[in-house]
Every structure is written in C-alpha cells, then in structure tokens.
C-alpha cells in the first residue's frame, strides 16, 4: 500500500512537471482562479484556505529555515535566467541583423563571409541580376563587401581581439537604412578612413573618433560612430576598395543587395542558375545571420539546463529539509485540526501551497537579481567570421516566466512529500508527542 502511494506520488510529480513545462502563462492564471473558486465555495476548499492561512502566518517564526527555500530557489533561477539571457541576447543580436528584403550572395558552399570569395567580374554580373531593386538613378542597390579581421585590444583584458573590418560599397547606406551616423561623419570614398560601430567603440580600445589605428602599416583615421541596433555595431566600416588594397585582396567576399520584394529571392536565384559563369548562392540576410547564432545559443542553453538541473536537485533537498522540519514542529497543531474534523486533503494542499508560495518568492527574487545585474550587460565573443560579435544579455519576460516555472516545479517536489507526511500523521501519536 505504502509502496503504491509512493509510486503514485512519483507519477503525480512527473505529470505535474510535464504540465508545467508545456503550460503557457494564461493557463496558469486559469488554474489559480479555479483554486480560488474551490477555496471559496466548497467545504474542503474553505478548510484548506484556513489551514494555509495558519501556515503562512507562522512563516515569520521560521524565517531562518524558510529563507533556505527562498534563497536556494533564487540561486537556481538567477543562474538559469542569467545563462539563458546570454543565449537570448546573442540570438536577438544576430536575428535583428539583416531582413527578408536583402539578399547576401556568396560563393557556393561558403558558410561565412570570411570563407567566401566573389571576383570583381562576378560582382558586376551579380549587381545586374533580376530581382535587385534599383535606386532613383537606375543604379542597383547592391554593395560588394569584404570582411577582414584586425587585431585591436579589448578594453577589459588589454589582449588583442579579432575585430571585424567591413569594406562596403557606395550603396551600403542605401542598402541598410537602419545604419545611422551618431557622431562625426562617414568615411570618405578612396580614403583610409573608418567609421566605428557603437558596440565596437565600447568594447575595444583606441577607436574614438579622430584617433588613428594602424592596419597593414598604414594609418587609418576614425571619422565617425554609427548605430544600427544589430550585429553590424561590432564592426568598423571603410571603403571596400581601400580595404581590399590594404589587405592585398583581388576580389570581394560577398555582395549584399536589396530585393524588389521578399519574393524576388527566387527570381534572383533563377538568374544565378541561368548564368553559367556564376558559382554563387543567394540567401536572405535574415537567414544568414540567424543561422550564425544557432550553435552558440544551443551550447549555452544546454549548459544552462544541466547546471539548472543539478542546482535544482540541490534546492529540492533543501526545500524537503525545511518543510519536513516545518511539518514536524507543527505536528501537534496539525493533529489537533485532524482531531476536530479537518480532512487530509486540506492539510496536503496547505503545505504544498505554502512551499510553492515560498518557491515563487524565491523565483521572483532570483529573476529580479538576474535582471538587475545582467540585463543589457554587454560582452563580446568570437562569431562565425572569426571575429568579435558584441551583444548584450537580454532578460526577457519569457525567460522570467520559464525561470518561475522551474521555481514552482522545485517547490512542488519539495512540498509534496512533507505534505503527504503531514496528512498521514497518526493523530494520537502526534498529539502525545513533545
């Protein structure tokens, strides 16, 4: 019998956690409302309410041990939310880069611009393909680009980091209207001048407007700062012809072009296929940049889950300890209530609710601390082009919600077993104790 109930408990836990995982937040509100209705309108519900009130009212007397649940769960949720916020920030930065209206054309098989190569002749051919939007003067809005990497020290560690320098064509600003110069001016055509992205300016040393940096034995002047709200902010931009000459490149790496409409990509692809001279692939820039975040995002998420599970197990034991102790100290009181006619279910519900309330408080605390410390915390890491991508942690409401789910799951497991013990206490022995 005892074995069977324990088995049942484990099944209940598994089902509850599964429900919690798939549950969207509106469903939880419905669930809470149902619970409130039950408590207000049924006899056992009212009993449960009054037992819970007593339990919650005694929390201040057990502040030390109750804080174990709160802080333990806050630790789990805080670490989890911070790690997921890192993955989310990286994903968002790259997902915001590019859109469905622009296409990037690279050599077939190339996974990143750095690996690609497009000759000057090909670039001219590509710009004339169908599906590419033309400006008022009839020139195609396409920019042949070259990405190279420069060694520039990081501000935090003072060691050299690979910073991306993007040589762009004359149409680059028409192509990416979200790029805005916030201070200074654009680089001059044919000059050794660069503009620096807001993110790169913040992360790397010596890039303030007016200063000069040394690239390939030549002095380059920083003329301005730009803002784009995406991964381009980690880069420095200059004239593609000058960058290409400095790095002794014969051609470009990619051509980015504005399409007449998102559907024009097929037209463009057909144009490429029809020209035997072109061995290139086209994809939308949003596809290209989104794919870049997949690997790192997955690694961080998996790591976050593993760490979360191990820490969660630790927190469950902490909660079990606390609630068993709480039930033990209230054994007499619970037995008294049982003796005067309270049923088992209200006792179970009250202990469970009490634990989950504490867990919820812990989850909120953890998520709040993670938000306080890490929201918009800016870091950089190596991206696909073997160069630094600057991004900020993003603590989004969805992440907070998933952190709270973890907290509630831990509270549920940590509360269920002590709740069952409380309900099973033999009334006579419990009354005689102490």
């Amino acid at each position: 019998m005892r074995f069977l109930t324990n088995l049942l408990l484990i099944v209940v836990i598994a089902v509850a956690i599964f429900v919690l995982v798939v549950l969207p937040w509106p469903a939880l509100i419905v669930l809470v409302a149902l619970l409130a209705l039950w408590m207000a309108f049924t006899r056992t519900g009212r009993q449960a309410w009054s037992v819970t009130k007593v339990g919650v009212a005694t929390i201040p007397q057990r502040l030390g041990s109750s804080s174990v649940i709160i802080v333990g769960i806050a630790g789990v949720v805080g670490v989890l939310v911070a790690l997921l916020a890192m993955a989310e920030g990286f994903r968002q930065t790259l997902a915001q880069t590019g859109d469905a209206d622009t296409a990037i054309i690279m050599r077939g098989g190339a996974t990143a611009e750095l690996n690609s190569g497009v000759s000057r002749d090909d670039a001219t051919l590509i710009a004339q393909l169908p599906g590419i939007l033309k400006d008022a003067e009839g020139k195609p809005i396409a920019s042949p680009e070259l990405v190279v990497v420069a060694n520039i020290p990081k501000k935090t560690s003072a060691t050299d980091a690979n910073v991306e320098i993007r040589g762009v064509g004359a149409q680059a600003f028409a192509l990416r209207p979200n790029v805005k110069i916030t201070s200074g001016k654009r680089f001059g055509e044919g000059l050794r001048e660069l503009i620096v992205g807001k993110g790169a300016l913040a992360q790397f040393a010596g890039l303030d407007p007016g200063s000069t940096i040394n690239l390939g034995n030549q002095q380059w002047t920083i003329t301005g700062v730009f803002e784009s709200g995406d991964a381009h902010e980690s880069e420095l931009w200059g004239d593609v012809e000058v960058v290409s000459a400095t790095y002794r490149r014969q051609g470009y790496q990619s051509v980015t072009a504005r399409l007449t409409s998102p559907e024009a990509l097929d037209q463009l692809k057909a144009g490429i296929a029809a020209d035997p001279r072109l061995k290139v692939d086209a994809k939308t820039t949003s596809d290209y940049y989104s794919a870049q975040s997949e690997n790192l995002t997955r690694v961080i998420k998996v790591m976050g889950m593993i760490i979360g599970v191990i820490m969660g197990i630790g927190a469950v034991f902490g909660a079990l300890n606390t609630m068993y102790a709480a039930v033990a100290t209230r054994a007499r009181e619970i037995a008294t209530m049982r003796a005067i006619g309270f049923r088992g279910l209200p006792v179970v519900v009250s202990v469970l609710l009490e634990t989950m309330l504490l867990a919820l408080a812990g989850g909120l605390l953890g998520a709040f601390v993670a938000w306080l410390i890490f929201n918009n915390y800016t870091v950089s890491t190596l991206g696909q082009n073997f160069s630094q991508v600057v991004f900020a942690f993003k603590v989004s409401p969805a992440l907070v919600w998933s952190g709270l789910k973890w907290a509630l799951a831990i509270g549920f497991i940590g509360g269920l077993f002590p709740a069952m013990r409380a309900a099973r206490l033999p009334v006579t022995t419990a009354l005689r104790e102490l």
Partner: protein
Amino acid sequence: MKYFHLIWAALFRRKTRTIFTLLSVLAAFLLFGMLDAVRSAFNAPPSAAGVSRLVVSSRISIIQPLPQSLLTRIQALPGVKDVAYANWFGGYYQEPKNQNLMFQIAVDPNYLDAYPELVLPADQRKAFNETRTGAILGEAAAKALNLKIGDKIPIKGAIFTNKASGDTTWTFDIVGIFKAAEDKQRGQENQMLFRWDYFDEGRTFGNGTIGWYIARVNDPNDSDKVAAAIDALSANSDHETKTQTEQAFQLAFVKQLGDIGLIVGAIMAAVFFTLILLTGNTMAQAVRERIPELAVLKTIGFSNKSVLGLVLAEAILLIVLGGVLGLLLAQVLLPAVNAGSGGRMNFPPIGGSTWTLGIALMLGIGLVVGVLPALRGMRLRIVDALAGR
C-alpha cells in the same frame, strides 16, 4: 580521533535530514567538479612543449597569409631548432555540422616533428610521407565520423577551390590515425592533417603563401629573444609578423571567446552561497535540538573547547563527506559525458588541482557553517540547558 564515533552518531541522529543535506552538498560539488573541468578545457594546459613552440602569424591579422620565403630565414636564426608551417583549410566532411568534429590543416613534412605529442605509428608516418593525397586523423575525429585507414574521403572546403575538381571539393586518402600522448591533450584529436604540397598545387589562388609558421626553440628560456628576432626579419615589410609562444597564442584565443573563468566563478559563487545558507541552517537546527545532550556532555566533564571542536568537526565532516562524493561522481560522469558526446566534447579528467581546491573549499565552508552553532554549543550554561531554558 577517539571521538569519531560520537561525531558520526551525532551526524546521523536525524537520518533523513542529514541525507538530504548530504545530497545538496553532493550536487554543489558535482557542479563544481564539472565546471572546473569546463574551465580547464578552455584554459590550455601549460606544457613544456607549448612554451618551446613559437607561433608566427601575420601582424595584420591571423587570417592574413605569409610568404613562404620566410621559412629559410627563420631557420637560419640562432636558437631556432626547426620550423614547420601550416595552412588552415576550413571544410567539412559530408555535412556542415561536422565542421567542429574534424577541422583540417594542410601541413608540411616537419609538422609532426614539431608536435611530438601527436603519436603516429612509424609505418603510417611512412605512408603519409609517400602518399601525396594522404591525410591523417586524430582518433577522436575518426571515431566520431566513423572513418578508418584506407577510406577515400571527399572534404567540402569553404575557402579554397581545387583545380582538379573545379569546385571546393578535395579528395583525401586516410593513411593514418594518430593519438594524443596524454588524456588532457585529447582536444588535439579533432583534427585532420594533410599534405601542404598537394594543397598548394591544387588550389587556384594564394599559391606559395602559408597560414602560419611553428618554430621550435632550443631553449624555452630564449623564447622571447627568438620571437623578437623572428619579428625583426619582416619589420617594415608588407608582411610583418607577430610571434608568440603557442601557450600565449592559445590563451589569447580563449580570451576572445569570453571570460569563461568569470562565468564559472559567478555560477560557483551563487551555488556556494546557497549551500552555506542551507547547511548552516541544518547545523543550527541540529545543535538547537541537541542542547540538552550537549549539556549532558559538559556535565560529565567535556570542556567548552571540546564541545566546540565536536560541533565544528560535525559540520566539516558533513561537507567533506558530501563534497568528496560529489567530486567522485563528477569524476565518473565526465568520461561518460565525453563518450556520450561522440567526440564533440573533450573535458579533461578531474585533476589534482581541482581536488586540492575542492577540499580547501569543503574545509572552508565546513568551518563557516559550523562556527556559529559551535559557539552556541560552547557557550551554553549547563543549568539553563538542562532546565530547558
């Protein structure tokens, strides 16, 4: 030591509570062991070979090629034992996602001499020298991709076009499989080495240039001097070099990934803070319950100091017991994670430094959580405690 029995009995006075606490401690130190492995996997192990090898790359940036003509000039420098060179290939076998399982490098004949930690049987080495299209793989890569000696494999390159095939596909014959000499170097088994001459003749551009040189020095103490001499060779030319020890090179690379040490440190701080609170509460509870017993101990002649010692020892024993079990579990789990990932991850086994740090942490945390309850036990007055006041 003679009180060990007493401490043990006190510890397991409330079995459930102690076991739950032990499991929490275990979880914390399991995490510590695994995260420390992650940290050391990213921080390349300091090795004598890493200090005696210099990496010579372009000062402009790592992706910029260097002329082959530097080879003889570097070789001629005093203090240089031998020089090898290599070029990044950057391709994948079958699917793009296999990119991280096996990366390819074109190497010159001397390369394996510069890396004595890559162990290749003599007959396979001979076959590699005799087969122009030959390639050798690390054992981990071979296992992950299910490849063996004798296989003919196409590699889809991302950068270099092959004259023979007209696109970026290159075909290689696997002639050997090498192993890392030590377990902690298993990360190096994720590469495929192939011959630079085959590569250079086959590619359509960049011929005669190389990615980087590896120069071995006679005396590691001279590394800085030799590095400066190498850089002086190309000073003010259009291909200036940057020479650093392999160790410094790898460290700089890891730093670019991000501050792994800081992330691991922050997580562990959160974990241990929680742990201290949790076990501290357990110990406080345990002592509170036993106040009459402690008073009895004092009555029969235990001094204040020995009561303090007993309670402290109990706290330390609790943490050390859970901590050692946790680290042992991590030690068992890590090889399983390595095996389960099919070569994608290669965490080094938990070493002496992790154990030392771990045990120091256990003792420290034990002291912190034990000190308040122990002081309480020491200060209690027999009369009050026995009377239940």
